[in-house]
């Protein structure tokens, strides 16, 4: 039964642009517009536009906002400057990954946490717990449903944003964030994304979003859906929580240890230090198919006749014109160059571990 799916403020625009809609994390969102491959190519070669209004947007402010986030997240928060954003994880007290998120610092005591739609409640409760227990002087506010979020991605993104808000794009380096007026609406603009291309994410009042969307489409940005988003992030070696990691995986297994500050005290620090000391037995690896066949989430990874791991994400990469995937394997098989097989619906198809990302844009 599909009832009460949350609709984005851009719902009507999506239907007008011919989107094929699907349920995703209790939201109704575009799977595709012109076609997934055409959308991937638009983002890699020009620009694409994504509605990411389903992502959770949680405000944290007050004298203990930094303390709360530093305790709840793996990134060091005191060193995050105003006007900067940082990729981070929320890990539980046993070290499992509750979610991954981007934390923005928009003012001295003003933070915004952008988390996955499916984990918005989990992250909210996680912050609320520590606010209640230890950081009462931090205020939490869920802004998700009052705002919209749009990602403009691709090599032409800076030029398009420049036409809408002069000087903003040029003032932001990667993971910079700023307040700007865009088409008359106060907007949080950050140089972030989930595609492996240069680009921006814009957060503004829900009412302002349809006009922003239409203007960017008129200017040539290709409307893109979840299908293209999933392939673009896979090509760029970016993980998806709920597929590539979850609360049963820790950052060392998922290859995310560089986002864990071990020299601070946090809800997860004791567990994470212990895991690092003990080491892990499985690791997430990237792999490419050597033979014809497309790996998919849930397929078994087979080595010497035994199932040794599972594919967590996979697909055909239009940019590389080959099939690639991510999956957990025993540590000794995660070395680039190692061969193993993927059980593609009963057929063993040879694959080879490769280092991530699969695709990396040429930087100017």
């Amino acid at each position, binding site marked *: 039964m599909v009832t009460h799916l949350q609709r984005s403020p851009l719902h009507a625009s999506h239907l007008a642009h011919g989107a094929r809609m699907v349920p995703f994390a209790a939201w109704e969102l575009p799977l*595709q517009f012109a076609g997934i491959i055409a959308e991937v190519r638009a983002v890699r070669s020009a620009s694409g536009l994504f509605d990411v209004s389903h992502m959770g947007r949680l405000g944290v402010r007050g004298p203990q906002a930094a303390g709360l986030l530093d305790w709840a997240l793996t990134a060091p928060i005191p060193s995050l400057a105003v006007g900067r954003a940082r990729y981070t994880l929320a890990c539980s007290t046993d070290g499992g990954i509750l979610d991954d998120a981007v934390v923005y610092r928009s003012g001295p005591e003003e933070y915004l946490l952008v988390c996955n739609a499916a984990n918005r409640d989990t992250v909210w409760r996680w912050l609320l717990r520590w606010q209640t227990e230890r950081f009462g002087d931090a205020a939490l506010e869920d802004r998700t449903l009052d705002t919209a979020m749009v990602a403009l991605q691709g090599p032409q993104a800076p030029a398009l944003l420049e036409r809408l808000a002069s000087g903003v794009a040029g003032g932001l380096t990667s993971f910079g964030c700023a307040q700007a007026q865009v088409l008359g609406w106060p907007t949080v603009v950050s140089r972030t994304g989930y595609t492996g291309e240069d680009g921006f994410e814009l957060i503004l009042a829900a009412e302002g979003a349809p006009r922003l969307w239409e203007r960017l489409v008129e200017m040539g940005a290709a409307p893109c859906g979840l299908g293209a988003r999933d392939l673009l992030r896979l090509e760029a070696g970016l993980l998806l929580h709920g597929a590539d990691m979850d609360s049963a995986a820790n950052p060392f297994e998922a290859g995310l240890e560089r986002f864990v500050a071990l020299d601070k005290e946090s809800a997860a620090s004791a567990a994470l230090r212990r895991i690092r000391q003990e080491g892990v037995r499985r690791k997430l690896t990237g792999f490419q198919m050597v033979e014809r066949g497309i790996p998919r989430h849930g397929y078994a990874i087979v080595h010497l006749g035994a199932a040794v791991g599972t594919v967590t994400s996979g697909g*055909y990469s239009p940019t590389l014109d080959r099939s690639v995937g991510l999956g957990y394997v025993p540590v000794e098989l995660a070395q680039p160059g190692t061969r193993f097989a993927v059980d593609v619906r009963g057929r063993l198809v040879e694959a080879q571990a490769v280092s991530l990302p699969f695709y990396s844009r040429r930087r100017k």
Partner: protein
Amino acid sequence: MYPRDRKYTKEHEWVLLEADGDAVVGITSYAQEQLGDIVFVDLPSPGTRLAQFQKLGEVESVKAVSDLYSPVAGEVLEANARLVQHPELLNQDPHGAAWLVRLGGVDKADLENLLSAKAYDQLLARQA
């Protein structure tokens, strides 16, 4: 309106009986539209014997895998090699150049278990 020269299955394959008695099998335009960008096609080798509605191969789009079924029984005389090399043909010309296999030894009686173009249109109308 779907071409009247052929018969259809509920699983969105078509079969066209040619003058020499061989049958050409494909998937419908509706099927390719539902699948989206097709990136992989797996077809049986010549000589493979297929029963009616037996699994014939697989077609894989960017998002999903689907099994293909043979609308009629027969022996695979030829698989469309060009299609295996260029799976995107299925999105471009599903009723023509992107045929899947040519079957020999076909029993015309099998066609009676299939849908006419009109019945297939009605099936799609009900699904819309």
